[in-house]
């Protein structure tokens, strides 16, 4: 009996998920501490080759320098692993979707590296927003690769409602991150109306994510795979945490809305986002949003969103063979 070959694409993708998750955390910390310009050149670090920058100056230097340089170095690890993943997917007998996503991951990691560099060279908040939106997209792609590479061939699609709500959740979670990035990288001279619109969009997005998450839980209660049930419930839990963190992040950045408090209770200095607790809350809110996106992708795949439904397989014009994922 032939022994099944080891699932290398899954292993490398799973490692990459963890490594990327850490990179997202470090990126979020860089934003929280406004450390992006702590190293003002790129790709060099204060004139040194990035990899040869003295360890003592890195770890013994200012906190923001440590964060930014660490973020860059860890980014190269993400890039190398992404190339390894693409190579493994190319050489392994894996699913077409996995290969396609691996190519997309390589493209994204290259773009993300360049965008990160230009964020420094141009010292631009808008480039920082692009960087903040491309990171979670890359994470979502890597999670999709890991989930698809792991999944067996026998997955049956859950109910159409489960598929739709989980797919909608992916879209809503990503758009939430886009809106969140606008608020995280706010221009000091922003028009108040724009700020209010952005906050409104972010709150509206939160309602959409809550609704879709709850719908996914209901839709996967029966007839769905165990993984889909677990992911949907985890997402609902994460959404609950995210709401609490979102409120906390607002207080840490802008203080408690003044109108709600008696005068004596009002904070004299509401911006405490860079205190230990404030940074943890603000950064946690950003990171949890990205994790929510990853979980939504995993749920969509577990619910069979990438699987051709039996009725569609014989639809006119369809080929009816060769599942994509």
């Amino acid at each position: 009996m032939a022994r099944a070959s080891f699932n290398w694409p899954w292993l490398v993708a799973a490692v990459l998920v963890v490594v990327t998750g850490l990179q997202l955390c470090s990126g979020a910390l860089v934003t929280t501490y406004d450390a992006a310009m702590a190293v003002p050149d790129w790709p060099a670090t204060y004139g040194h080759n990035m990899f040869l920058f003295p360890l003592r100056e890195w770890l013994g230097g200012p906190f923001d320098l440590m964060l930014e340089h660490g973020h860059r170095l860890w980014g190269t690890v993400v890039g190398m692993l992404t190339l390894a993943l693409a190579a493994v997917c190319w050489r392994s007998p894996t699913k077409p979707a996995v290969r396609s996503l691996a190519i997309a991951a390589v493209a994204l990691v290259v773009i993300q590296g360049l965008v990160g560099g230009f964020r420094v060279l141009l010292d631009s908040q808008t480039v920082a927003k692009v960087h903040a939106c491309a990171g979670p997209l890359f994470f979502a792609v890597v999670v999709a690769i890991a989930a698809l590479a792991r999944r067996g061939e026998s997955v049956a699609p859950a109910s159409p409602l489960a598929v739709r709500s989980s797919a909608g959740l992916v879209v809503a979670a990503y758009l939430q991150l886009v809106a969140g990035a606008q608020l995280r990288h706010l221009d000091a001279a922003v028009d108040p109306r724009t700020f209010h619109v952005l906050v409104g969009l972010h709150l509206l997005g939160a309602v959409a994510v809550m609704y879709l998450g709850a719908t996914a839980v209901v839709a996967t209660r029966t007839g769905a795979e165990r993984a889909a049930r677990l992911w949907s419930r985890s997402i609902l839990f994460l959404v609950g945490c995210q709401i609490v963190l979102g409120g906390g992040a607002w207080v840490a950045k802008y203080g408690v809305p003044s109108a709600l408090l008696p005068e004596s209770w009002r904070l004299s200095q509401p911006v405490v986002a860079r205190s230990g607790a404030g940074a943890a809350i603000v950064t946690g809110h950003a990171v949890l949003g990205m994790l929510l996106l990853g979980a939504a992708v995993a749920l969509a795949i577990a619910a069979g969103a990438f699987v051709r439904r039996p009725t569609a397989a014989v639809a006119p014009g369809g080929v009816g063979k060769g599942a994509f994922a």
Partner: protein
Amino acid sequence: MTPPAGFAAAELSIDRGIPAAGAPTAGLAAVLADAAQLVRPKIAIMVLATVAAAWWLTAGPPADAGSFVALLVGTALVAASSSIANQILERRTDRMMPRTARRPVAAGRLGVATAALLATATLGAGVVVTMRAAGWQPAAAAAATWLLYVVAYTPLKRTTPLNTAVGAVAGALPVAIGWLAADGPALLAAGDASGALAAAALGTILYLWQFPHFMAIAWLYREQYAAAGLAMLTVVDPTGLRAAGQSLAAAIAMVPVSLVLAVPSGSTRLFLVAAVCSGAYVAAAIRFAVLRDRPGARLLLFTSLGSLLGLLVAAMTLGAAS
């Protein structure tokens, strides 16, 4: 000049209202119908929109409207020439596909020699008009696009599915015409990199955008392409898996690039519009990848047109250089 892979959606409607080969048609109407098939005006309009968007992003609304219009006229002439040359080179395969069999050259209503004369005249006129309007650099870019499309892409369609990757370059090059015509290099040399950044983003968007767009068309007409012996990806791989994969990868990669469009202006609204347009494109690409059926391909095709139109309009209105 004409983007080979891109904008071909306009061809979907080309058969409507066009009389069958050899059918008796009278006078001016028949000539106009043939002319429309020959130069494919919808495709030319999309090319001109690209040139205009690149100009807007580089230098804002043109100060000299006359030169700007002349640039568009020159570009349109080169685009028309490339379309005619393409139809001369592909007349045999065009005859084998119902979608293209009624084109004037393929159907024999226009002789090859006459068509070649038209192609040469429009190319020459287009290059000259472009040069007089905007200088030799945009004219050279237009000529290079023509060459890439006619000399490289068109023959490659018969030999390798990699033709899309080559043709997509020709589809993205009109951005260079607009950037060069708007004095992009001079602005860059003066230290203003915002126009160059926006043009580079727009060119990359157009390159990536063409993969899902063209794969959708190649899927819809795969039987015709196979009958004509063209090496499209959907012919080489009839399951559509490779076409779906390329579509998905390109659509995903397009997301961050489209967000870069907002960088020079710093416009939050442009950023959000770009996120929504490119996100919708990814969603349609995923749907096509999963289903690989005609409705999925049609949705991807129309989403491609809508998303590009949305991006171009938003870039010109919200992201124009001041």
